[in-house]
């Protein structure tokens, strides 16, 4: 189960993932991918441009298969540590679209009540821990959550998400090493979208694949087609079963491509245009829809109806979030400590 070097083309030309996932799973995957795409499009292309979302906006366009395929494997007791291109994790864990939009708009009904913005949110009641801006900082924290689950006799798994760039940080290596030494139940999920801000992979790491880092930690590592949601799902099933069995952590490298700049203000002129064209053909939503029709899991009409239903759901959530008040400046000092 050591790393198998592969190019993006090799991965995408490979045979479809083994096993026959049922139509129900495909429908679920499509729903969450479409929902994430629609919410992020609305944020980046409407609300941000209208000045209703301020600050930084980072989206996971074209990378939706990674949070969706993996988080759908999570069980109630599991704890997830999404990174900034993993919005669907929140929806899958039960955080409403309304509250996520209120979060982006800095409203009091947002997940952090206006204390933080964008994907910087968490809610322990649904097992989701907030990231911080220093990427990979959540990696040792995920190891600690896994340690706590074992300590408490909970058979849970920590899902630790990060990008290719985060694997260059010391926190990543310290967290992965500690998890491996302690054989902790962690699934490490890398969204390798090939750019960390403007830095391409070859300036990020000397190895070919993030998965190549696995053997150094005696950790199984698998390369996954990150634009095939069912492949991500199946790989996560394997990884979570391994971690849950007490065998230790497992690394999934999901190869994908960042179809945007780093953030809404970044035009990504440093990315060769042909890469956008090549990867645009591999859009995970388009691929799943085609597969669903080919396999007779859905009719085109059903898929069209789903698109329309999601647009309405997001319309409603935007309206709700806009009605939510801004936080009262009188609350500025509250909550630094449990008791002030």
């Amino acid at each position, binding site marked *: 189960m050591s790393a198998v070097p592969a190019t993006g083309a090799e991965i995408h030309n490979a045979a479809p993932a083994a096993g026959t996932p049922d139509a129900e799973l495909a429908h679920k995957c499509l729903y969450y991918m479409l929902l994430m795409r629609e919410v992020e499009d609305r944020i980046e292309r409407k609300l941000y441009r209208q000045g209703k979302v301020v600050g930084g906006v980072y989206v996971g366009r074209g990378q939706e298969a990674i949070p969706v395929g993996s988080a759908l494997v999570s069980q109630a007791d599991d704890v997830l540590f999404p990174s900034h291109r993993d919005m669907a994790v929140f929806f899958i864990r039960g955080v409403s679209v309304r509250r996520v939009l209120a979060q982006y708009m800095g409203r009091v009904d947002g997940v952090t009540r206006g204390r933080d913005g964008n994907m910087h949110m968490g809610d322990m009641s649904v097992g989701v821990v907030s990231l911080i801006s220093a990427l990979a900082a959540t990696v040792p924290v995920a190891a600690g959550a896994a*340690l706590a689950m074992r300590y408490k006799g909970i058979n849970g798994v920590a899902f630790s998400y990060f990008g290719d760039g985060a694997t260059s940080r010391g926190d990543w290596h310290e967290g992965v090493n500690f998890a491996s030494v302690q054989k902790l139940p962690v699934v490490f999920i890398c969204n390798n979208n090939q750019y960390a801000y403007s830095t391409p992979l070859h300036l990020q790491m000397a190895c070919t694949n993030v998965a190549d880092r696995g053997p150094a930690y005696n950790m199984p590592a698998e390369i996954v087609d990150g634009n095939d949601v069912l492949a991500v799902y199946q790989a996560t099933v394997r990884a979570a079963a391994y971690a849950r069995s007490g065998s230790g952590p497992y690394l999934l490298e999901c190869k994908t491509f960042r179809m945007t700049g780093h953030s809404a203000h970044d035009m990504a002129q440093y990315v060769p245009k042909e890469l956008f064209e090549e990867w645009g053909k591999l859009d995970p939503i388009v691929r799943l829809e085609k597969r669903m029709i080919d396999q007779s899991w859905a009719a085109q009409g059903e898929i069209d109806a789903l698109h329309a239903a999601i647009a309405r759901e997001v319309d409603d959530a935007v309206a709700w979030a806009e009605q939510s008040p801004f936080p009262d400046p009188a609350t500025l000092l509250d909550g630094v400590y449990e008791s002030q």
Partner: protein
Amino acid sequence: MSTTYLEAIREGLWEEMERDPTVFCIGEDIGEYGGAFKVTAGLLERFGARRVVDTPISEAAIVGASIGAGLMGLRPVAEMQFADFISCGFDQIVNFAAKCRYRWNAGVPIVIRSPSGGGIHGGPFHSQNPEMWFVRTPGLKVVCPATAYDAKGLIKSAIRDNDPVLFFEHKGLYRKIKEDLPTEEYTVPIGKAKVAREGRDLSIITYGAMVWTALEAAEILAAEGCSVEVVDLRTLVPLDRETICASVRKTSKALLLHEDTRTGGMAGELAATIAENVFEFLDGPIVRVTAPDTPVPYSPPLEEAFLPNAEKVVEKARWLFRY
């Protein structure tokens, strides 16, 4: 039987681990070896490897894993082998642990124990007093006990606290001081200073090992007719401004003392607190005695010149007394 400062901390850890099954220790060499200073000696035998977790040399992982465990409802007590190494876990402390509650209402009930301070010829990387890095980070509590009694009572309170607590143990005090501790259980509240010696003419406001330096200076000054009050802050965050101001109202003169370096040291915040609140009670300038703005030097004559001592305090106090 007298208990040393070090044994007092161990007793506090031991009692809390007996009392609460969610309390566990995590750090480098803390298990079989018992920690670099032996604070955790015996804990592994009593509580097992599940609750006394030896880690790789990874301060970010020690703090990060503590945060993760804390979010999951456990109460980890992390040990930094020396306070100097806390910088390796800095981001986890100031950006992760400190901001969780404010940002997303998630309590992080962790304690980070750090042996700090000089006087043991440890040189630039085994002698520092890094408390101010954390004092100025909202969301963290900072505790610096001076006595065995307080060390035990405060480590117990720190473990029970629902926010991250930085617990600085002065390594020079570990085996140097001892006292009889109560046989019955007790805690010392975080955020309450203590008047370590009552006086009329001048207040020395300090914390940690410098409390003993202040008391030594007060004894010398008493023989000269200067009655010194010594305020032991015990906790830097939250800061007990009431006790500080009450002492200055009484004596009208303030000498601020710490082992940490001068610029940006705690004395600056204390001076501002006094100036803002009890300026009209002052009969003289606010005076600081601190280490100079240098790294902690190794060679004994240099380290001696670096560290504040009773002689330096007496000299400044005499000047202020006569002002």
